[in-house]
Structure formats: C-alpha cells, structure tokens
C-alpha cells in the first residue's frame, strides 16, 4: 500500500499494490441494490404477517412464545382447512351412504367406488389381521374372497356377522364317540372333501350321530333354504367342498375337530373360532365401528369376489 495516491481524483480507496493495482470505490450495480432493499422489505413484511421470532417467556402471547403475525397463520390451521375441504367432498357421499342400504350402494357404481376406497382402510384396520390383507384368509381364519360362506354371503348376513360377531360351536366328541367311529367319520369327511360320494356306512353314521343337525342333511352346511332363497345355517362348515375350515385339513385335522369340537369350554384342545362383534351392541363404541362403517365393510367384503 502506498503512502501517497498516485491516481488522485479517481475515486479509489487508497489501497495500492505493485504501484498500479488499486481498489476502486465504485457503487454496486443498481439492480443489486434494488434486490437488496426488496429482500429487506420482504423480510420485514413477512415478520409482520407471519409467525417469526421467538419471544421471551414474560412477553409471550397466549399459546406459545413467538410472534404470531397479523394474519394469524399457523401450519396446523392450514392442515385443518385442508381436512375440512376433504370432509366437504366426502360429505356428499357419506350423506348418501347413510340413507342407503348396502344393496343400493352396490347399484351405484360411483358410490361403490368411493365406498370400496373408503372401506379398504377400515378393512386394513379391523379385518386384515385375521382374514388377511386381501381377504385371502389365513391358517385358522376363513377366506372372505371366495364364495364359500359359513353364515351366508348375502349383504344382510355380512352386516350381521360384522355387527354381532360370530362364535362357532361344535360338541367335543371325545367322550361321545368310539375311536372307530371318530376314525370312520374323519375318513368320511376326507372322502367328501376329495370330491367323493362318501361311503354308505359313513352317511349312516353321519346321520345317526346327529351331525346333520348342524352340517345339514347333505353335509353342505345348509340346514334349509327358504322360498325367498335365504339359506339357513348355524355356521357349520360345508363338508362337501375341498375348503377346510381349519387348515391344513385332511384326516388328522378332521379327527382333531371331531374329538375336541369348537369353542368348547373346559376342553383344552378345542378349536378357537370366534369373530368379535364390531357393532355397538357390545355397549361401547370405543374401537368399534359405526353403522355406516359396517355398511361400507359389507359392500367391500361382498365385492371381494364371493358376495351372494
């Protein structure tokens, strides 16, 4: 840096290097200064309009230690407004659903689409744990995506099942039947499940021992068919198809069920087959489903493939 200014009147800062390199005192470009002032103004304006600074505890306004901004904007408020908009869109569908029966919903393609999308979440929350994410069933839990129904696959029956739950019941025959009879009946059910006719002796024993009381005269789980097509069952399995209520099925499974029954108190190895009630009949709505939700689920389950 030189002590004297060899370039007087040039508007330099007085900083020199190597005799002729010097720092000039030019103003910044105009556009740059405009941008600077605009950004400062934006900062101030933003601070006035929106929440910005934390404040000391004794200065804090109600609800938190920060400046609130004159617009009173908060992210949670924005979220709630968004949710209100969603609710408005949903409301028109929900109102319709509330006043319609599940069958009527199914007749309206637009409403059905909404119901299925809405019920998918409900199904995941309440049904999928046992019946599988796609209603495909699981070992020990019935399939919902086929047309094999224990309690009937009509919309009314599905609503009834979801609302009140189901509890299977079958007597334990360990002290009622002889070993040979259990063996014969087990083989009889296996033969029916494999598509066979069943032996004459098997049918005889099946009738004699009262199996028909629940499994029906034809062992297909149907006790009676009313004139309007309604099927009367008590939830006993159809023994004439290849679907086993208790997987893996086959001789050993059948024998176990005959010996120890289903949901028999005091029988240690009895089958557990209970579906909880999801309606409000249990007295508490907590964790349970509203009637409209049950309606939606009925449409969903009915549409999984096997609705009757």
């Amino acid at each position, binding site marked *: 840096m030189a002590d004297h200014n060899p370039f007087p009147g040039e508007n330099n800062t007085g900083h020199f290097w190597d005799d002729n390199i010097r720092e000039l005192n030019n103003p910044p470009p105009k556009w740059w200064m405009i941008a600077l002032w605009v950004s400062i103004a934006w900062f101030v304006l933003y601070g006035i309009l929106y929440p910005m600074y934390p404040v000391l505890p004794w200065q804090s306004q109600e609800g938190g230690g920060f400046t609130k901004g004159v617009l009173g904007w908060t992210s949670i408020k924005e979220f709630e407004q968004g949710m209100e908009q969603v609710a408005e869109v949903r409301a028109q569908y929900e109102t319709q659903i509330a006043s319609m029966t599940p069958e009527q919903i199914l007749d309206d393609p637009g409403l059905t689409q909404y119901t299925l999308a809405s019920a998918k979440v409900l199904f995941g929350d309440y049904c999928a744990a046992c019946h599988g994410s796609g209603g495909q069933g699981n070992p020990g839990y019935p399939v919902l995506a086929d047309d094999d129904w224990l309690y009937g696959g009509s919309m009314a029956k599905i609503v009834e099942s979801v609302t009140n739950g189901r509890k299977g019941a079958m007597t334990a025959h360990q002290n009622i039947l002889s070993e040979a009879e259990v063996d014969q009946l087990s083989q009889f059910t296996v033969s029916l499940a494999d598509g066979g006719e069943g032996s004459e002796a098997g049918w005889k024993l099946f009738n004699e021992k009262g199996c028909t009381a629940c499994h029906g005269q034809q062992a297909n789980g149907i006790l009676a068919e009313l004139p309007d097509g309604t099927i009367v069952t008590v939830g006993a399995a159809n023994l004439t198809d290849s679907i086993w209520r208790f997987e893996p099925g086959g001789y*050993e499974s059948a024998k176990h069920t005959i010996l120890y029954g289903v949901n028999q108190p005091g029988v240690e190895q009895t089958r557990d087959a209970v579906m909880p009630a999801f309606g409000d009949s249990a007295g508490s709505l907590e964790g349970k489903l509203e009637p409209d939700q049950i309606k939606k689920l009925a449409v969903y389950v009915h549409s999984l493939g096997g609705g009757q």
Partner: protein
Amino acid sequence: MSDVTTASVSADHRPQLAPAGQGGGPDSAWRSPWFLGWIGLVVVVVVVNATMITLAFVTNPGLVVDDYYERGRDVERSLTTRRAEAPGWTMSLDTPADVAAKTPTMVRFYVVDSVGQPVRPDQVTYYAYRPSDPSADFSLPMVEEAPGRYAAEVTFALSGLWDTLVAAQTGGQEIAFDQRIGVADH
C-alpha cells in the same frame, strides 16, 4: 504437396505415413478423419470399460452370505436334516399386495400345527434381505397378537425385490418360512 501425396505407397503396397518431422504438418495422420474416427472409437470403448469397471468396484455390495462355500457343500445334508426335523406346521406370511417403499406396512405371520391348532413359538423374528445389497438388510421381532398370529410393522427403504423370511424359534429349533416380494415405489 497435395492431399493425394499425404500417404505414399511403397513397393510392398503398404501405405506409409508422412515422413518423420512433419507430425503436426498438413501431412500428419492426425488430420485424417478416418484415423481420428478410429482413435475416437477406441477411446470411447476404453472409457466405457473403465467407467463400468470403476462402478463395479465402487458399488460392490460384497457377499450376501459369508460362508457360501460351506453352505453349498452342506446343502444336501442341511436339506435332509430340515426335512426330517420339520414339524409339519402350516405357515403363512401376509404381506399386503400394495406394499411400498418408505411406508410403514403391517406384515403378519400365521402358524398352525399339523392338526390345525395354533402354535406358540418362543420367538418369532422377521428378516428382510435385499438380494443385491446386504447393507439394506434388516430384521425385527414379531409381536404375538393372538396364539399363532404374529405381527410386525416394517418399512422397506428401497423399492424392488426383497427376500423376506420369518424364523420361528421353539425349543432350540428354528423353523423358517420365506417369501419373495416386490416393493413398489414410494
């Protein structure tokens, strides 16, 4: 000197490049589009090869199984042992069909014995293996929801193929059930 004389033909009919000392001159081979094109081709091939080799080294995830040789050697024996020890359980792993990356998903494992009664193993663990990258592998314990029914909330970090496996430990024995799944994009 005209272009025609850039390469002269010798007595043995082999083309000869311009005489030494004229490297950068108008007669240089570096001015021939054929020569440059050929060199360019070779350079491209070499660069692509180098890039691929570098990528292969840099992104190499290592071996998925460390003792691959021993396992391969013992495969027959372990299969036979496993078959002999298999308790005849029926198992099922329910992974939702629409499972997506970076989204918590509930997976459930179901197990019943040979007569269809629920089994309650001592411990049930969920393993997820990324076939191409062991650093993404993870495992977590499954919680019993009901006898024979176990659940875990899993989040897959990456979309694509995953090999999932549930190991049920009971009395020192480990029974495994595997399932290959495709995870959609987030």
